[in-house]
């Protein structure tokens, strides 16, 4: 059984239908990559999962539970973490305060905290700094750190490499590999190089529909398919 299943999701923003028919099974464990051109509906898919947009018709199931109409906060409490495209870091709060809000009890587990420090040393260095003063890469680290400061079942990450320097992207990839050893990541990416090194299973969304679904290895081998689904000219 898959961890997350989306079936025939149609999501409209205002009058405008953005997702037409998204059906997708995300298995448990590892990194599942969702690719797609700019404007294809990747962000909207993640927001529909988190209950920030409401699909209608269509459903979202987590394990054997229908979460389609659940409140975002209750979905989060099931063990979801969401790292949005704009990172969602609270600029007026310190790094520490940002992280403490991501714990359900308001206390850090020392082991997890150590792990966060090890993955992202910059966060320890700027622990008491207000988050607006961090660089883009550091903000992204903070956003990812929030998603792993407690055990989670599923982490949704929206284009974490956007606008980041190559050295930081490498650090991010290492972090994701380590995180995915113990939890499931649904990763949305446009950076194919980054995504192909991480994903085991993948899907491509195009114009609000799932256009391809398979293993990353097969997709990497099929240049034609990549061109058809991801190239800007198509």
């Amino acid at each position, binding site marked *: 059984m898959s961890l997350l299943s989306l079936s025939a999701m149609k999501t409209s923003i205002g009058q405008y239908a953005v997702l037409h028919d998204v059906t997708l099974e995300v298995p448990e464990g590892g990194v599942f990559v969702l690719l797609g051109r700019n404007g294809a509906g990747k962000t909207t898919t993640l927001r529909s999962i*988190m209950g920030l947009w409401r699909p209608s018709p269509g459903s979202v199931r987590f394990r054997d539970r229908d979460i389609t109409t659940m409140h*975002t906060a209750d979905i989060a409490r099931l063990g*979801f973490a*969401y790292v949005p495209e704009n990172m*969602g870091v609270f600029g007026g709060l310190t790094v520490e*305060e940002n992280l*403490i*809000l991501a714990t*359900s009890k308001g206390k850090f587990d020392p082991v997890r905290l150590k792990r966060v420090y090890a993955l992202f040393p910059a966060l320890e260095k700027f622990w008491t700094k207000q988050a607006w003063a961090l660089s883009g890469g550091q903000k992204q680290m903070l956003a990812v750190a929030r998603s792993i400061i407690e055990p989670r079942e599923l982490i949704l990450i929206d284009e974490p490499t956007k606008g980041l320097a190559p050295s930081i992207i490498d650090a991010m990839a290492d972090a994701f590999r380590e995180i995915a050893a113990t939890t499931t990541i649904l990763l949305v990416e446009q950076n194919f190089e980054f995504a192909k090194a991480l994903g085991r299973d993948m899907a491509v969304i195009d114009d609000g529909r799932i256009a391809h679904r398979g293993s990353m290895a097969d997709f990497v081998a099929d240049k034609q398919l990549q061109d058809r689904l991801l190239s800007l000219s198509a």
Partner: protein
Amino acid sequence: MKNLGAMFERFGGVNLLPVLVAIVAFVLIGAPSSWVTLTIAGLAMGMMIFLMASGLSLIFGLMDVLNFGHSAFVSFGAFVAASVLAFFGAWLGGDSVFLSGLALFLAIAAAIVVGLLGGWFFERVIVKPVYKDHLRQILITMGALIVAEQIILAIWGGTPTSVPRPAFLEGAWIVGDVSVEVYRVFAFALGLAVYAALALILNRTRIGLLIRAGVENREMVEALGFRVDRLFVAVFMVGSALAAMGGAMWAGYQTLISPALGAEMMIVVFIVVIIGGLGSIEGTLLGALLVGLLGNYVGFLAPKMALASNMILMMAILMWRPSGLRPAIK
């Protein structure tokens, strides 16, 4: 010019504005004793306006709700406190500082309780159905303000109600040739204490953290597993209670109040919240002190300009800083 700007920031930036206003006023007024009296009056007024406005700022910041009915709580606070004080008139007139202090305490407490309960009712019944719809928020909360005014008319009547106050807050201290009204010092001190308590809660507690985070990005707080809508009810109640407390203190300051009080204060309160920057109580305090001081100075120097001065201040500040002096980070 650039150096001047850097200097300004180094010495406290926008926090300096009330001081600058006070210095300019000192030069224009000339007579130090009048200046001291006006400054104390301005600070006291500013603190009371801060109480009235702080809740509105957080309510808008957290849920993007425009509540034009906020000042109804100012009115209710004022009238409830006036009635409680009148009820304990014998204590107020007596010699016991304890009894008159108790009467004052009960009056303010009654206003706060009415604010909490009224805030709860108002949020659940009137505001909740119109989340995310500014136009309907404006219409329905304005309507509620009118209804509140009618309720006050029905209970307390249309003629101005006089507000008795404890003997120990009457009169003035004379220091040299300066006279300092006791009630003003009391209002300033109480307002400052409330500000300190609010700042402590917002900066040092988990609830405060959630409120500050929610003002910045409500969705993200929800995605971290917190029900901001439930938190909002509490913030709405406390904000309404603070407005009622401000109204109660205002009643004692004016000593004569009429049902139009709420509508009159609404404009000032909105100006303060806009000047200060939405969603931050530091900004609201700054805006309130500026409005309080300027109101008193201008009232003395050019009485005809008193009303317009707030509007001019607001426009000047918005031209300089379009999102207010110290807005919450968005």
